[in-house]
């Protein structure tokens, strides 16, 4: 094992290692920059910036390690999900939660639950309209039974009504 061979990058490059290492480097650089803006102090009297500074340096170091040692991707590993349907999950799941967050205090718990179910369900394979409607009815009822009636959490169920 010579250093030259470790650094030999002519063979298949693993883009995920480059991205992963690069991201760690960026996070580390950001943390170091922030830490340097705070008081560092000395080992016996550490300021608020001392510990973050050490972590930032470790972050950059690890980013380099990943980029150097793991960039030559020859290992067998499952690739990221190439199924186009994966995009539905990727986008609809966060979108459905955003809908819930926006509606919860404006319209109430029940509309928020219904919106979440309706936005999230199209990501599923073999989905039927009847199934989605049933779930969109059952979920707010269950949420009301468990959290409002059962546990007494202070939720507005439907704004202006309950």
């Amino acid at each position: 094992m010579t250093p030259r061979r470790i650094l030999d990058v002519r063979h298949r490059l693993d883009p995920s290692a480059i991205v992963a290492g690069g991201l760690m480097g960026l996070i580390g650089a950001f943390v170091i920059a922030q830490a340097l803006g705070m008081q560092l102090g000395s080992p016996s009297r550490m300021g608020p910036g001392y510990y973050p500074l050490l972590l930032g340096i470790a972050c950059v170091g690890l980013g380099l390690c990943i980029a150097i040692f793991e960039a030559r991707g020859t290992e067998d590993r499952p690739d990221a999900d190439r199924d186009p349907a994966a995009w539905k999950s990727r986008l609809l799941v966060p979108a459905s939660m955003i809908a819930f967050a926006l509606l919860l205090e404006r319209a109430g718990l029940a509309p928020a639950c219904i919106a979440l179910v309706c936005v999230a369900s199209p990501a599923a394979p073999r989905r039927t309209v009847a199934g989605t409607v049933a779930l969109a009815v059952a979920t707010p009822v269950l949420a009301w039974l468990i959290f409002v009636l059962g546990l007494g959490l202070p939720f507005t169920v439907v704004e202006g009504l309950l």
Partner: protein
Amino acid sequence: MTDLFANLALGADVALSWSALLYCLLGVTLGMIVGVLPGVGPLPAIAMLLPITFYIDPTEAIIMLAGIYYGGQYGASTASILLNLPGTPPAAVTCLDGYPMAKQGRAGQALFMTAIASLIGSLFGIVLVAAFAPVLARFALEFGAAEYFSLILFALLGSAAIGGDSFFRSISMVIVGLILGIVGQDVTSGQFRFVFGIPGIADGLSIVAVAMGIFGVAEVMATAHQKRDMKPESFRFRKMLPSRDELRRSWPAIGRGSGVGAICGTLPGAGASMAVFIAYALEKRVSRRPEAFGQGAIEGVTAPESANNATAQTAFIPTLTLGVPGDAVMAVMIGALMIHGINPGPGLVSEQPQMFWGLVVSFVIGNAILVILNIPLVGIWTRLLQIPYSTLYPIILVLVCIGVYSINSSVFDIFLVILFGIVGYGMKLLRFPPAPLLLGFILSPMMEENFRRALLLSRGDWSTFVTRPISATFVGLSVAVLLFSAGQVLLKLRRRDWARHRGAPEG
């Protein structure tokens, strides 16, 4: 000895009250459910229920949350055997021989022996908790800042060394977790760090939001569109009793598995995933017919199952007596205790005896309930397995949103959990493991405080970490973990080079 009995009587008093029994039953049943259902797992379940436990007594809250944890270990094996789908990472090993058994029509025996092995492993673990946690707590009273820092260092490195396929990526996530743990107000100087004027994170990031984001939401984002064939292998209830030969081969396997599990649970940073792999490998090594493993060998099921349950119980030893969790689930458990104003550490056993001993006795009760849930009532779980994932995941998302909101009645926290869901999904794509991040996040404030105090007490002399014997031991162990991992990295690179020279595919 009389002490122990007096303590157990005190624990029985607490654990046998109607409300404690109810929460114990509720906890283990929920644990079974989330263990059986693929894609939920005990960790998001505990994080989700955390806010609800504000409204109940802390001891009962911990009894319930602990029940979810060890109940999940039982439940996960059911899905592994019948569907070849592990509900929790350690259950993946149970698939190796459990699913072949089910394919051969021996699912009943596999499930029966799993329940027995889990029970014995758990009981062994509980005995160790009762016997050693108080002793360890007395020992830990002598721990100073330097000892704590070195112990945490070892726990973090240890969990990184066994989590995931790449040591660098695991340790990277530990560091990122430690950085996320800084967010909020610095205790010593009062200065806000990494807050950027956002009021929602001035008190630090919500542990529930981080845990549910990178474990719960990220998982749904990755799997919602996938088609899953939910046809569990069928079995007949009457055929659950194992043959004499299976029993004879199971007992020693259960004994060895329990031992391995107990060691891994007690060591901070080892955890159940490590325990089951060691137990399985050990069983294959000592077996007179190693070729049967992977083809439906009963020892390949009973050894890892007893190991992971022994780990689940003994994991409470470092968590409660040192305040240093062994894995990500225990990290959330520490979060739960702290939310209730209880600081896990050497003082917990003596200051909160009713909680500690109540918990120990509740473990016994919970495991007894789990055996009933698993053997006579096994039919319920096979039916639960048939609920389609397309029905489950929207419900999971609703529970996540309500759970995270109800802690502070803060919509901001919902956005935080979405953000961490996206972060967790990105981590999946880049093969960064999530568990070390959560462990680092929980331990960061404790690590920084002890780091600062140790160097303050030594007047800035770094040798304090290696001149104090206990601290030196942990530093030594940490160095050993690092050398071992470095060796593995080099070995991997060298093997790759050899493969390339011969032009042969890697093997």
